[in-house]
């Protein structure tokens, strides 16, 4: 129960920050000011937006399928929120530390698609229907490169447990039960003979343990943009042609839930990217000679310092990735449907398949 409340409030906090950042980043990139009136520098803007949405009338179109229409936003939000359950916040703090976390994550997040389809179909509106169909087509196809990219990281780590993957990428790897006698080699290649187990920091991050995972990270990042319907892959929502896609008929509270779910999804995919590729809650600072920077900025596992350092690194890395998402949104124009599918099936999927093969070979070199 505590974990539930904690995760929910943390998620809401990050979402509020991201919504505010989105407006400010968009404004700054377009030489505007962004919100300035509500609170200092407009910081209260996202809260007031939510308040405004909550005050609005709850409209259900008379021709809509009322049950589907009402359940859809809740289903989407629940699917996304359930994904947060397996995210380890810091060493020793994970809402639900299940051994097949990665698999669970992929499964629960795909449930999102059903919610979108329900919303689009239930609205009984052609824009919503088109938006939902595009959305489903896009998300289902992009799950393949995303899944393959994740798979290559999983093959390197030999684990489906987010917490175990996190431990493997830091200086305190040997504290995890089952990893006591494992070692990290530079670039993951034992033949080089440089032991980085106690060095930690950036040298043990997955993109360093197996440098080809950098490509996997890029593939995953692109695919995750598409999965959370972010520009440049926002054709399901395409304000300029589909009005707002599948949620065109929604207003007030239900729209707020969609909005929340969308931003929570952005946060979630970035968290997963950080955990799988960018060292999770591990510090980027390494132990260099006598300077034990890695231990210093990791804290003690199980104590408050460990939790705070872990949460700090995880969230700051996530915010950096989120900034890149915003940056991409305000830089690149939207892809056409055919370009989108071309990118997914003819570029990302073959690359991801190649990565999986490479991951297998690399793993053989590691042991």
């Amino acid at each position: 129960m505590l974990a539930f409340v904690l995760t929910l409030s943390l998620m809401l906090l990050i979402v509020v920050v991201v919504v505010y950042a989105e407006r400010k980043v968009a404004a700054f990139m377009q030489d505007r000011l962004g919100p300035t009136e509500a609170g200092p520098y407009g910081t209260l803007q996202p809260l007031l937006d939510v308040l405004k949405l909550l005050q609005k009338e709850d409209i259900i179109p008379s021709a809509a399928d009322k049950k589907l229409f009402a359940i859809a936003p809740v289903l989407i939000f629940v699917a996304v929120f359930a994904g947060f359950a397996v995210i380890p916040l810091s060493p020793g703090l994970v809402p639900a530390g299940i051994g097949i976390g990665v698999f669970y994550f992929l499964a629960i997040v795909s449930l999102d698609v059903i919610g979108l389809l329900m919303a689009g179909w239930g609205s009984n509106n052609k824009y919503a229907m088109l938006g939902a169909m595009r959305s489903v087509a896009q998300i289902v196809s992009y799950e393949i490169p995303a899944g393959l990219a994740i798979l290559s990281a999983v093959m390197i780590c030999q684990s489906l447990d987010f917490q175990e993957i996190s431990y493997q990428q830091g200086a305190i790897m040997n504290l995890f039960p089952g990893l006591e006698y494992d070692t990290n080699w530079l670039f993951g290649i034992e033949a080089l003979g440089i032991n980085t187990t106690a060095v930690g920091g950036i040298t043990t991050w997955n993109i360093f343990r197996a440098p080809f995972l950098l490509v996997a990270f890029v593939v995953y990042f692109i695919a995750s943009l598409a999965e959370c319907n972010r520009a440049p892959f926002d054709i399901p929502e395409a304000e300029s042609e589909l009005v707002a896609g599948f949620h065109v008929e929604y207003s007030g509270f239900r729209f707020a839930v969609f909005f929340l779910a969308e931003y929570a999804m952005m946060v979630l995919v970035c968290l997963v990217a950080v955990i799988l590729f960018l060292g999770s809650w591990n510090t980027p600072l390494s132990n260099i000679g006598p300077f034990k920077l890695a231990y210093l900025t990791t804290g003690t596992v199980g104590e408050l310092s460990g939790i705070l350092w872990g949460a700090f690194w995880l969230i700051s890395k996530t915010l950096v990735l989120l900034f890149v998402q915003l940056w991409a949104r305000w830089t690149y124009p939207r892809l056409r449907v055919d370009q989108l599918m071309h990118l997914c099936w003819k570029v990302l999927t073959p690359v991801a398949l190649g990565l999986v093969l490479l991951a297998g070979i690399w793993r053989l070199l590691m042991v």
Partner: protein
Amino acid sequence: MEKEAIRNKSGVWDVVKSLVSGARLTMQHFRNAKNRRTPEYVSDENYFKQPDGLATLTYPYEAIPVPDNGRYRLHNEIEDCIVCDLCAKICPVNCITIESVKATEDIGTTSDGTKKRLYAPVFDIDMAKCCYCGLCTSVCPTDCLTMTPVYDFSEVDIKNMVYHFTDLSPEQAQEKQRLFEQQQEEQAAAKAAALAARKKS
């Protein structure tokens, strides 16, 4: 920055290069966001030297000054008005309403020395009708009707767009009217008396 367009079938490298140049462009704007445009008049030497940074001004708090000879809200300095009615006559949309009452006594001169002979119990300009052509200001012989730099004066009620410039209250206006009529009567009586005296002789 890449100037050439990316052809449809160009290689991966070209595409990456164009993606990076786009990202660099927006990043540059993002980094320049600490600079802000300052509200300076076009004659200021800084005016054209602010190509970077945020272009928005927070309008009610900051505004670029308007030109001195711009045509915005009218103002009548009623002290200097000789109520000659020229402005009302030239106005193409008839938005100036003037009523005049002849003064019975000496009411002084305007600041440029013209003698004032009339009171203006009504001097209204309907800014909602005005087309800001500025003709009235150019015909005004005493230059008392001018354009001010005020351009933000929208109103909720359109009646408030009629500006009253008279300096007489309705009572004062009635008093002046009465005085004038009295004087007329006195003059008429004096005239009649003079006429009768002439007839008698």
